């Protein structure tokens, strides 16, 4: 009985082993086939990759050529731009030099305008001289008035003298002559005084109008100069 069992077991195991072996062999074959297929696929892939790579290598080559051409172009352009930049730099330097020159000139203009403003002092001097002239004229008016009144008084005195002389009769004839001479003199003085007065009035107008012209003209010039000075200063500051 045990022998049968052992035999069965051995047989079973042998069958199992054989089956396993068969299966194993089958599996191996399948594995091998698969491996072979995989290897083939890999080989194919590698081949494909190789050709791709070849192409891929061609692309950068082309690109490199392309880039070289571009680089050449850029070099040319750069050379051109460089030349333009040099020109611009030269122009900018010239403009800056000009600007410095203009700024300098603007400052000088502002300086001159400021200096000319002191012309105001000259006008003040003329102004004072004119006032002194006008005062003198005024004084002369007064003196002439005085002279006029003295002359009138002399005329009256001489008239009275003539009357007295007439009263004195023949004894007063000499005196009458003197009195009439005095009256004639007084009349001439009065004429002179009147003409002097007219001259004074003429002077009044000329002096006053000249004085006022200087005063008004001076203000106009001072105001214009101030405007020039402020313009020049503004210009000068924009250039800096």
């Amino acid at each position, binding site marked *: 009985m045990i022998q049968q069992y052992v035999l069965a077991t051995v047989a079973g195991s042998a069958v199992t082993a054989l089956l396993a072996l068969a299966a194993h062999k089958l599996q191996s074959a399948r594995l091998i086939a698969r491996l072979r297929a995989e290897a083939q696929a890999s080989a194919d892939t590698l081949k494909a990759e190789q050709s791709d790579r070849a192409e891929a290598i061609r692309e950068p080559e082309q690109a490199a050529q392309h880039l070289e051409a571009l680089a050449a172009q850029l070099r040319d352009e750069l050379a051109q731009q460089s030349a333009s930049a040099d020109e611009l730099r030269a122009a900018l330097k010239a403009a800056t030099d000009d600007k410095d020159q203009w700024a300098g000139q603007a400052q000088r203009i502002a300086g001159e305008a400021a200096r000319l403003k002191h012309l105001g002092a000259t006008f003040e001097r003329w102004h004072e001289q004119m006032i002194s002239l006008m005062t003198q004229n005024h004084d002369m008016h007064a003196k002439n008035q005085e002279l006029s009144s003295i002359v009138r008084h002399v005329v009256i005195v001489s008239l009275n003298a003539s009357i007295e002389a007439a009263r004195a009769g023949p004894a007063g004839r000499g005196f009458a002559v003197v009195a009439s001479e005095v009256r004639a003199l007084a009349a001439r003085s009065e004429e002179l005084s009147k003409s002097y007065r007219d001259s004074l*009035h003429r002077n009044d107008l000329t002096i006053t*109008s000249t*004085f*006022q012209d200087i005063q*008004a003209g001076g203000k*106009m010039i001072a105001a214009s100069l101030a405007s020039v000075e402020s313009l020049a200063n503004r210009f000068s500051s924009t250039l800096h």
Partner: protein
Amino acid sequence: MITAQARDSFERIFRKAAQARLPIEPGDTCEIAPVGAGDATRTDAMKGAQVVVLTISSIVFRLLLILHFDENDATRGYYLKDDVERPFQEVFLEICNLCCGAMNQELLRYFPDLGMSTPYVLSAHCLPYLRELNPDFVSAYSVTLNGSMQLAATICVCADAPVDFVADTSAMEETSGELELF
């Protein structure tokens, strides 16, 4: 040398300034009538024993504004009102100054460089010598304020170069009195 339209402009500017500044009360009337050209320098034709003289100077011309007045009770009464203690001449000089100032402001619109003098009082006897200034334009007017207050005015312009402009006196600008801050 002074064109007809410039003369007309000077006259209109004077009239506008006189009407605005000569009356002491804003509501008073101001009648301005021209006096014949030949009479402009005759002292008897022009009312006033004294004159106030002002000058406006520009680069090409100078203008003299001469206001004739009599310092009598009527004039003092009109300008000093009840306050007869105030010095009449100072008050009147200021009025003349304002009148000339108004002309100055108007002329500035056409002549950017102008200067104005201070006023000065002279005897009217100096007027006949106005011709010695060689004026290119002289025009005289009688001015009646409030129906009874009599003044007279003479405008005299001497030009060194041709003067031509047209004044627009239509604008009623009252820009005086306002403070312009810088």
